[in-house]
């Protein structure tokens, strides 16, 4: 069933430089917002392995590496590079008037 969109203000575009990331608490969801090559991405901040905060990991282009046990995920689709069936929930983003919004009701998004 398609859920209603639920666009939540996350941050100002100026708050993040390219290659930077920031953990946020949006309506009780731990969300990681990232900026890569000018585009904004949002995903759950909890690693699907043991829930470590991905915000403390390292980002290289579109791949984020969890600080705990080095599992690597593509931030665009949330896929775990070593087993695509495992995913980090991702959220849609949009920019309006220098503000970044995250759609918390995206399909596949979890808490």
């Amino acid at each position, binding site marked *: 069933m398609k859920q209603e969109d639920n666009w939540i203000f996350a941050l100002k575009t100026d708050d993040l430089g390219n290659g930077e990331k920031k953990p946020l608490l949006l309506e009780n969801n731990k969300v990681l917002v990232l900026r890569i090559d000018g585009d904004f991405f949002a995903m759950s901040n909890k690693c*699907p*392995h043991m829930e470590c905060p991905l915000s403390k990991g390292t980002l290289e282009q579109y791949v984020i590496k969890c600080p*705990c*046990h*080095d599992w690597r995920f593509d931030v665009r689709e949330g896929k775990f590079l*070593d*087993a695509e*069936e*495992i995913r980090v929930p991702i959220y849609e983003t949009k920019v309006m008037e220098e503000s970044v919004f995250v759609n918390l009701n995206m399909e596949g998004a979890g808490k």
Partner: protein
Amino acid sequence: MDNEKRKGQLRTMFSKVVDPLGYKFSPDEELVDFLLEQEVNIEKEKGSPFCPCQGLTGEREHDMKLVCPCIPFHREHYDAMRRCWCGLYVHKDVKDPDSLPQISLKEFLEAKK
């Protein structure tokens, strides 16, 4: 935190990880409980729940592939056995885990050829 509680937490987290890979916890409850207990102790000592049945070398790149569940890094081998090396996890359709032998990586690779 007491061991029982941590065992429960690992069980919850790991079942979510192995489920999309086609695995479940072994129906051999005694084995599962024993292995989780070992993992909790290993986690206390080393910081991560490393595999109770495979050896660490101290090199991060090697050892991180042996944090439970290590299935993603040994997928083909474990799929061929229909269980992980320790037998903590088995393919979802497995009812009699004792019937699944351990096949060494070397034998597996030779059989593949």
